[in-house]
């Protein structure tokens, strides 16, 4: 991982020195274990701030929306897919970007680790595939693959789909993963069970909108939940309003979501709202053979009409 960091710094420094970009967007070391902070660097002498490890789960494409300057951006597989979506949706121009591709082997789910140790996490180090965690209860070692974010463990696009630089050779893509096991499990439930399931899932929501704001797709100037003329959704903690928010937000991501996991990662109360977006991803794949953000040449599934559309009503 430290080689990734070195390589990112080296590329960033070169891009800034050659004035090919005005800023490089990446991560800097956070103030707590397993937390890194998205940051920008404008001067070649500041590139030592940039780091890379398995705690860079925030999707950096989120920081590109409507920016005008020339930007170098560090991108793992999912970030790169959202960059593609951003370009297709005219939120940033391809010419503005120098994409520094990072082949990714998954990001760690801090909550999984926190749940299996005593006391709080004091320090964490990573060597090879091993994560060593120091806590009040002593030291414990984890196999990285066992503590990955759930979206990373089923990810089939670890390598950037679009890049100008690469910090390392591509990693092998995972092939034998069951991407939609969780969605299938919900589909197997009865109508009643499904209603109950989501009632429980969304109950802790505090409507802080971290999920929405961490999502690179959620860039509307005024979100439907904030709209007041007319007001579509109530602003209280009423379960129906909470459900409406999550349900409609998922829809706005239909055919666009890359399952980068930023929403779930950002949620302060640990709601897996990805179950909603994943269902739509699964439908897009099964109905239209579509996965979002794989290349710049094809229009999104819900953006085109084809004569063989699987929906009856449209013919």
């Amino acid at each position, binding site marked *: 991982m430290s080689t990734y960091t070195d390589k990112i710094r080296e590329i960033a420094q070169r891009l800034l020195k050659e004035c090919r970009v005005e800023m490089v967007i990446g991560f800097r070391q956070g103030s707590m274990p397993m937390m890194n902070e998205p940051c920008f660097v404008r001067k070649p002498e500041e590139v030592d701030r940039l780091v890379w490890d398995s705690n860079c789960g925030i999707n950096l494409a989120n920081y590109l929306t409507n920016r005008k300057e020339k930007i170098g951006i560090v991108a793992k597989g999912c970030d790169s897919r959202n960059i593609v979506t951003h370009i297709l949706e005219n939120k940033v121009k391809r010419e503005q970007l120098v994409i520094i591709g990072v082949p990714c082997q998954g990001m760690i789910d801090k909550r999984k680790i926190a749940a299996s140790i005593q006391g709080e996490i004091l320090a964490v180090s990573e060597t090879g595939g091993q994560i060593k965690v120091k806590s009040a209860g002593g030291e414990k070692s984890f196999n990285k693959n066992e503590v990955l974010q759930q979206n990373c463990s089923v990810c089939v696009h670890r390598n950037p789909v679009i890049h100008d630089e690469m910090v390392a050779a591509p990693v092998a893509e995972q092939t034998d993963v069951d991407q939609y096991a969780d*969605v299938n499990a*919900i*589909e197997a439930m009865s*109508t*009643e*069970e*499904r*209603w*109950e*399931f*989501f009632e429980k899932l969304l109950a802790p929501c505090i409507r802080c909108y971290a999920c929405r704001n961490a999502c690179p797709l959620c860039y509307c100037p005024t979100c439907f939940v904030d709209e007041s003329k007319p007001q579509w959704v*109530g602003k*209280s*903690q*009423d*379960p*129906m*309003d909470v*459900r*409406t928010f999550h*349900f409609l937000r*998922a*829809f706005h991501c239909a055919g666009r979501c890359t399952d980068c996991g930023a929403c779930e990662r950002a949620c302060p109360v640990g709601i897996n709202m990805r179950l*909603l977006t994943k*269902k*739509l991803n699964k*439908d897009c794949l099964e109905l239209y053979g579509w996965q979002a953000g794989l290349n710049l040449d094809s229009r999104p599934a819900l953006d085109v009409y084809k004569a063989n559309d699987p*929906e009856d*009503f*449209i*013919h």
Partner: protein
Amino acid sequence: MKNLLVTMGIDPDRLHFSWISSAESTKFVKVVNEITAKVKAIGPNQRFVKKEAKVA
């Protein structure tokens, strides 16, 4: 859309999509009658209905 609503626990018969041109008045009448009959058959919806806010 229907798929996610169903996944969340909404009865599939409550939602219907149809492509009707502004000139197709008879089709519109037919479709609306069909849907109303279907929905009446399953009775009033108890879900996704906001009652008095459940707050403190």
